[in-house]
């Protein structure tokens, strides 16, 4: 099979350029993170990671991610089910609306939450009169994290569920299956890998969110510092090795995310070849 651009010279040249540039601009930074983190030895890396404030930041970050995922999961599945299984006026509008978090600058996202729920905002002011404060504490961080991560699950599911159509679900219903049974036994097995990947992406973004969180967190060490904020503080304090130790942990999560995606895609392609 001969295709356009298959001439050996063109082919080799394009591959070399693509691989070279990717290596320089994508791979090199990745290498640099770990090189910096371990530049003073494993011992220093370890003491940086096991520092109290770092451990606290890790705990807070993971806790936020853990709370974010179920919320995004329920929303993502509900929205994907809604827009792929029913037609109704406003369906396209809903699909456009969920892209808002992708388009809005993280700083702006943090700001709008601060304005509404901060002490001067109309909800925040009301809460303040009951002595409740959401901003500059973990609920605020959770709220903006949900804002920036909510599209991921839905965005993974919608194209897949659109492509699969609703014939299998209709078949299940003609055979007498209830709504929950249909979802659990027919829909879920068909979407589980996309769902898993959606969760992984949500997690990666929740763990790494910086701009929005830095607006609403207050960045109090040992209290409201997430790992990316902690990393920034270390970096500003000229503790580059400490900053990169945190960066290495976050990069590790990113690498696991990439590996999970590659694994799921490999699985899908094998199933296709098999079918």
């Amino acid at each position: 099979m001969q295709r356009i651009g298959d001439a050996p010279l063109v082919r080799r040249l394009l591959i070399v350029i693509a691989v070279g540039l990717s290596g320089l601009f994508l791979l090199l930074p990745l290498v640099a993170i770990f090189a910096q983190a371990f530049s003073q030895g494993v011992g220093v890396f370890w003491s940086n990671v096991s520092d109290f404030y770092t451990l606290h930041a890790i705990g807070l970050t993971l806790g936020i991610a853990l709370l974010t995922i179920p919320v995004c999961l329920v929303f993502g599945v509900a929205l994907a089910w809604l827009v792929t299984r029913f037609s109704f006026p406003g369906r396209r509008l809903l699909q456009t609306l969920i892209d808002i978090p992708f388009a809005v600058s993280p700083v702006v996202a943090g700001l709008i939450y601060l304005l509404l729920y901060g002490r001067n905002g109309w909800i925040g002011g009301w809460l303040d009169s009951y002595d409740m404060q959401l901003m500059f504490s973990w609920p605020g961080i959770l709220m903006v994290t949900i804002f920036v991560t909510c599209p991921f699950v839905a965005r993974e599911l919608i194209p897949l569920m659109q492509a699969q159509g609703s014939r299998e679900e209709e078949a299940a219903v003609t055979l007498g299956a209830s709504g929950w049974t249909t979802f659990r036994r027919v829909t879920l097995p068909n979407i589980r890998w996309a769902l898993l990947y959606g969760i992984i992406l949500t997690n990666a973004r929740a763990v790494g969110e910086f701009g929005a969180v830095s607006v609403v967190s207050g960045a109090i060490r040992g209290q409201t510092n997430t790992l990316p904020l902690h990393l920034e503080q270390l970096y500003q304090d000229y503790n580059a090795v400490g900053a990169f130790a945190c960066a290495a942990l976050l990069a590790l999560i990113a690498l696991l995310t990439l590996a999970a995606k590659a694994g799921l895609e490999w699985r899908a392609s094998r199933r296709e070849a098999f079918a």
Partner: protein
Amino acid sequence: MSHLALRRFGSARVLPGFGLSMGISVLFISLVLLLPITGLFGQLAGLSFAEYWSIITEGRVVASYMVTIGAAAVAALINAAFGLLLAWVLVRYTFPGKRLLDALMDLPFALPTAVAGITLATLYSSNGWMGSWLEALGLPVAQTWVGIALAMAFTSIPFVVRTVQPVLEDMPVEVDEAAMSLGATDGVAFRRVIMPHLWPALVTGTGLAFVRSLGEFGAIIFIAGNMPYETEITALMIFIKLQEYDYVGASAIASVVLFVSLALLLAINVWQGRFVRRLHGGKA
């Protein structure tokens, strides 16, 4: 399933869960996405137009628009070319390490922006691995707008690759074969047969990359140097106003950013919808 819904939209809802999924989705979108935006307008309501105008056209702020838009445009153009090349190589060729390269494409999405920020700042600083020899060539990157564009390009490259890739994958071999059988050289065939297919995806991907770059914060502030009037981006301007407790000023600038990015998002969606309809005959 409510009878109201049935009568209202006149079609059967054989599958269950319409009310439930509609309820969850609308409630969530209203509370999480739309309600907070009202807070912004509440903040701005107390402002006269002249005051608003003077805030958003202040010299330092305008300079930040220039820096942001200019760097984002350069980053988007670089990504259009680089992303097209990467998508092409990943779809059309097989070579050792291809899977790895493919996986690497998602790195900028998976890597927290702050991590990317300090890494790029370190790499391109005057004593970093890249910065030291670039500076020797007389091309300083850190603390210039080149660094800003670089950071933007880094964080947004997957947009182009991942929108062009599936379209390229879907192009049947017959298209190539038809072009070649009609005597077209590779260059002509690429320009006249393949590119017309890729345009919509390439523009969409580049547009998304541009929008993302306009709002990027974490990856940029470390490498930018943040010199007023020179390397200060708009997102940072908002952040600085906030730290000065100037909520009104922050809101005014944020409203500009929000409006521009939502308008661009809408434009991209409309543009994409038009091409989807053209290629798939009305069914979007």
